[in-house]
């Protein structure tokens, strides 16, 4: 909503406040002023001039040489506008004037002839092209004949105005009218309010002899008032109406249209003017449209209708889409002499449906959708009749003819001073509350140490006690509320075990050298379903799709974090950042029925990592290490160690992963993720070099972990370390052999670590050597050599039997 302050001054005295101070006060009271626009920064030295003479410039065909009377003197001005004529009253920027855009007007010579000043178009004076009346769009502006020569044009054209742009929250549709803003401003400033004159002189003729009103859908249209105004002369509106419309962002058309728009802005009440003679009957019937019915609206579009749309008809055909747009047939034109004026209340639902279905949003439909003041419907009609009689020569027939089932009753809300203070934490007095109610222009009765407040119909947003608490608080001033801290029994805040663990996992990953990334959960269908871990693909029947995605890029809910994480790597690679180590912790969305989801999907917390480039680059010492499988495996192992989870690595072939460099992660036999190199083809698709990743079901891990730090004693007895180097077939897995060793070694074997893998010279072809370090420990006593030796022998025979391993000499 754009609020012209010059217009607002008609209702409430704001002269003592500069626009920015007023704006701040309005903002602090609850309606945010999003901007202040000054129509022209400096508009002095622009006056009304009378074109006494206008002849062709001696040296230029398209220029005119004018003698202009500007009051104290005559100025010779050269003007190129096509519509300049002798006898016009025009806006003259005298030498010394500064027009918008810091355009300084000076004496000048044009083709050898002196010119002192400029005859201006409205655009040159700072008015936006789209608001300039059509007749002046391509040339200079011409004042009405009664304009006084030498008068300050900036006042006549409202160039000294400031316009506030209000950002209205949905509850404050009352401020979609100048009167609403006036009530608000008067309350904030504690100033009296001056309402417009709503008196009109009716002729002896009766409206009911001209028109009949029938409403067949009273639920959607509880009030329909029809006024008839005869002897209308369609012409430009007076300057002040045009000025205010322009300030409010509406282009002036002619007096009839302008007046309906003016009253729309003033009262917040949409009005519609039909050409009575073109209406097609003497009967208005408001009804739901029929299926297959259509209407050609003012904009020339043919629109298909259905029973969900409310229409105004002449008994046969629709003549308007109720509350949204009139029909072309009965449009007011230059030749209109009798106006049929509609002032109606259409329900928000009816208008919203029509406006959405037909993609038509207008000043009218917006107001109907948000709800208008039932008390102003008829009053706005009267106000328009008054203006039509004054500025369009209209004779207003006694009326209106109306269908009226409109509820205009005022809601009552009871408040007490102590209730208000309890809720706000304040010590406001009875007198202060009464004062606030008076400022708001709310009527009230004092009763039982409280107030029964009648809520004016313009404030449909106030229905309950809490709404009144806000009204009182905002006029009292939020600034004046005290600062207190809650008195309730204090509880110890804190993180849950799960939240603490999540933070610890993040800290571990960061300590391990990975940077946290956050990617989008919504991605393309292809990416949403790529690189899913076996335990996810097993459950999910495809990814979930949004019903109306904004783009295919963000259409589906991810089943894996990795694809978007790879895209992040790729983004960086393209920016010459080749060495990257990222992790992300986040949820994936598992639906066992895929797209046919009807219930909330399972949201599974996962931890993904993606690493590419050099893990270590230390050139001057010739140390350089590319990321490989074991770098990311080391990170994963460290995490599992930290969480105290035992995890097995099982060679696996997974879609999108390198077939020889991928392992599935198993904990107690169930899958908890995977680790490995991205398949080179997929790497290519993402423009990546060798990239290693893991993706872990953190949800499952966190479930199985106990947070209490289990403290195990530092052993008192010495441990014994033994090495064992085994020769085996090259295809065998160290992890399998390790398992055999652990099983055969008995309880004294506390740790088994691979410390060397060798293949090549000194070994028969097809064989490799794996060396393990075994750590023996008895927490209860000093170990005997014989105990260790016997376990060692057990191990040897077990690995020989299970894997054909031979001790390597």
């Amino acid at each position, binding site marked *: 909503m754009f609020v012209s302050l010059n217009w607002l001054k008609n209702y409430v005295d704001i002269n003592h406040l500069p626009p920015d101070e007023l704006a701040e006060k309005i903002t*602090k*009271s609850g309606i945010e002023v999003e901007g202040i626009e000054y129509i022209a920064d400096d508009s002095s030295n622009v006056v009304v001039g009378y074109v006494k003479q206008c002849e062709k410039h001696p040296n230029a065909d398209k220029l005119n040489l004018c003698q202009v009377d500007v009051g104290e003197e005559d100025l010779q001005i050269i003007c190129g506008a096509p519509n300049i004529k002798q006898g016009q009253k025009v806006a003259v920027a005298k030498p010394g004037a500064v027009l918008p855009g810091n355009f300084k007007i000076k004496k000048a010579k044009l083709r050898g002839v002196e010119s002192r000043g400029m005859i201006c178009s409205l655009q040159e004076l700072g008015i936006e092209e789209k608001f300039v009346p059509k007749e002046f769009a391509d040339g200079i502006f011409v004042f009405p004949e009664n304009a006084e020569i030498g008068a300050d044009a900036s006042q006549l054209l409202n160039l000294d105005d400031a316009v506030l742009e209000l950002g209205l*929250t*949905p509850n*404050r549709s009352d401020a979609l009218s100048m009167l609403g803003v006036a009530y608000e401003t008067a309350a904030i400033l504690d100033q009296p309010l001056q309402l417009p004159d709503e008196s009109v002189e009716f002729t002896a003729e009766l409206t009911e002899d001209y028109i009949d009103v029938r409403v067949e859908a009273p639920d959607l249209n509880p009030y329909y008032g029809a006024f008839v105004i005869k002897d209308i002369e369609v012409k430009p509106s007076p300057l002040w109406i045009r000025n205010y419309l322009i300030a409010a962002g509406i282009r002036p058309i002619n007096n009839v249209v302008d007046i309906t728009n003016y009253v729309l802005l003033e009262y917040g009440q949409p009005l519609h003017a039909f050409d009575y003679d073109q209406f097609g009957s003497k009967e208005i019937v408001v009804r739901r449209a029929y299926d297959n019915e259509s209407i050609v609206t003012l904009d020339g579009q043919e629109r298909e209708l259905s029973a969900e749309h409310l229409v105004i008809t002449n008994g046969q055909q629709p003549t308007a889409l109720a509350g949204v747009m009139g029909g072309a047939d009965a449009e007011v034109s230059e030749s209109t002499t009798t106006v049929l004026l509609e002032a109606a209340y259409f329900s928000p*639902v009816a208008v919203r449906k029509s406006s959405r279905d037909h993609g038509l949003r207008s000043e009218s439909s917006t107001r109907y*959708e*948000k709800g208008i003041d039932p008390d102003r419907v008829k009053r706005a009609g009267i106000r328009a009749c008054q203006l039509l009689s004054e500025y369009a020569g209209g004779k207003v027939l006694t009326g209106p003819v109306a269908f009226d089932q409109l509820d205009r009753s005022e809601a009552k809300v009871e408040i007490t001073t102590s209730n208000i203070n*309890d*809720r706000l*934490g*304040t010590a406001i007095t009875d007198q202060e509350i009464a004062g606030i109610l008076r400022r708001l222009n709310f009527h009230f009765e004092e009763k039982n140490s409280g107030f029964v407040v009648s809520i004016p119909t313009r404030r449909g947003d106030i229905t*309950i006690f*809490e*709404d009144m*608490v*806000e009204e009182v*608080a*905002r006029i009292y001033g939020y*600034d004046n*509320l*005290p*600062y*207190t*801290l*809650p008195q*309730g029994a204090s*509880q110890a*805040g804190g*993180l*849950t075990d799960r939240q603490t663990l999540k933070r610890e996992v993040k800290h571990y*990953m*960061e*300590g*391990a050298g*990975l*940077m*946290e*990334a956050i*990617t*989008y*959960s*919504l991605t393309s269908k292809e990416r949403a379903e790529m690189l899913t871990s076996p335990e996810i693909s097993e459950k999910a029947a495809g990814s*979930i799709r949004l*019903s*109306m995605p*904004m783009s295919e890029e*963000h259409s589906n*809910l991810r089943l894996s974090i990795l694809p978007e994480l790879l895209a*992040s790597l790729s*983004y*960086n690679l393209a*920016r010459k*950042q080749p060495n990257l*180590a990222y992790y992300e912790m*986040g949820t994936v969305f598992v639906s066992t029925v895929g797209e046919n989801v*009807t219930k*909330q999907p399972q949201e599974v917390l996962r931890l993904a990592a993606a690493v590419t480039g050099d893990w270590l*680059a230390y050139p*001057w010492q010739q140390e350089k290490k590319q990321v490989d499988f074991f770098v990311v495996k080391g990170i994963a192992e460290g995490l599992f160690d930290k969480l105290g989870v035992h995890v097995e690595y099982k060679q696996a072939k997974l879609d999108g992963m390198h077939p020889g460099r991928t392992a599935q992660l198993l904990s107690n036999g169930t899958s908890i993720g995977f680790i490995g190199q991205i398949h080179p083809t997929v790497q290519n698709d993402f423009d990546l070099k060798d990239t290693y990743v893991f993706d872990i079901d953190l949800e499952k891990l966190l479930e199985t972990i106990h947070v209490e730090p289990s403290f195990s004693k530092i052993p008192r007895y010495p441990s014994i370390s033994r090495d064992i180097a085994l020769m085996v077939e090259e295809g065998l897995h160290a992890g399998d052999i390790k398992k055999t060793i652990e099983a055969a070694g008995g309880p004294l074997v506390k740790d088994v670590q691979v410390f060397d893998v060798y293949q090549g010279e000194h070994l028969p072809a097809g064989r490799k050597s794996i060396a393990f370090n075994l750590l023996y420990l008895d927490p209860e006593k000093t170990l005997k050599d014989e105990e260790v030796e016997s376990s060692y022998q057990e191990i040897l025979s077990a690995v020989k039997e299970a894997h054909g391993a031979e001790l390597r000499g």
Partner: protein
Amino acid sequence: MKERLQELKEEALAKAEQAETLSELQEIRVAYLGKKGPITEVLRGMGKLSKEERPVIGELANRVRESIADVLDTKKETLEAKQLEAKLEKETIDVTLPGRPVNVGGPHLLTSIVEEIEDLFIGMGFEVREGPEVETDYFNFEALNLPKGHPARDMQDSFYITEELLMRTHTSPVQARTMGKYDGKKPVKMICPGKVYRRDTDDATHSHQFTQVEGLYVDKNVQMSDLKGVLNRFAKQMFGEEREIRLRPSFFPFTEPSVEMDISCKVCNGEGCSVCKGTGWIEILGGGMVHPRVLEMAGYDPKEYTGFAFGMGPERIAMLKYGVDDIRHFYTNDIRFLKQYHKA
């Protein structure tokens, strides 16, 4: 004999004094103190001496031996120290060469902000709650006083999956869920951080996915001044003691009265600049007293319980605090962007 011993001592001490290497020193030790050395020889000739002289000479010989040995030991230590010094000198390195790099990771800026907010509210006795990102229409809207067809649903155009399921548009449903669990009896004091989604085209100030932290406090006798006190404490801790705060009336369907909180602009100190659009104030969060219908739907009697709720956007806070100029930076994961916030 006495003289001979005295001579030997002086001879040996003089040689020890001049010795420059450990091997020279060893040679001296062998020469004077060895089994074939002159002192042993002197002792061997003791047989010729009288009974009275024998112990005297014997003792003298031992003293000479000891003092030579002492001097040699001391000299050895000195030489060893020198030798070590010389060796270490040779080990000198160029300390200005670069060190071996350590891979340093770190949290995403949003995580840092969210954890900072969490910790501030934990300090005021709040607990942290989480909830699903795919929500039901009921918890996302209806339980928050936004029935179907409510015009305020326009304010947050949403990503629906089915008519009843959508990507949550705020983290408020977690509040409704938590209150629901408490059965209308226990006080609730919680914040809920998380990802939220709205139908916005991504640009410098909009993101279809972003982060929210909402808070809720429900108890008997909660007053609006408590909201003001808590938010004030939060803002000063988060943005600095010198920042001023102000509350403005606003509108949210789930609170009444509703507030919007501004802090004084840090860039211009409230004078007005382009960052604060000339107002001197920057909006950082919204909140208000929990709407009685929201309490009712969650099973709380609004005559007995009152509460306040608030919500804020960590992206916006990060943008204000660190001058981040484009919300898309939070989701492209540019390493150069992520790294620069670990120095603070």
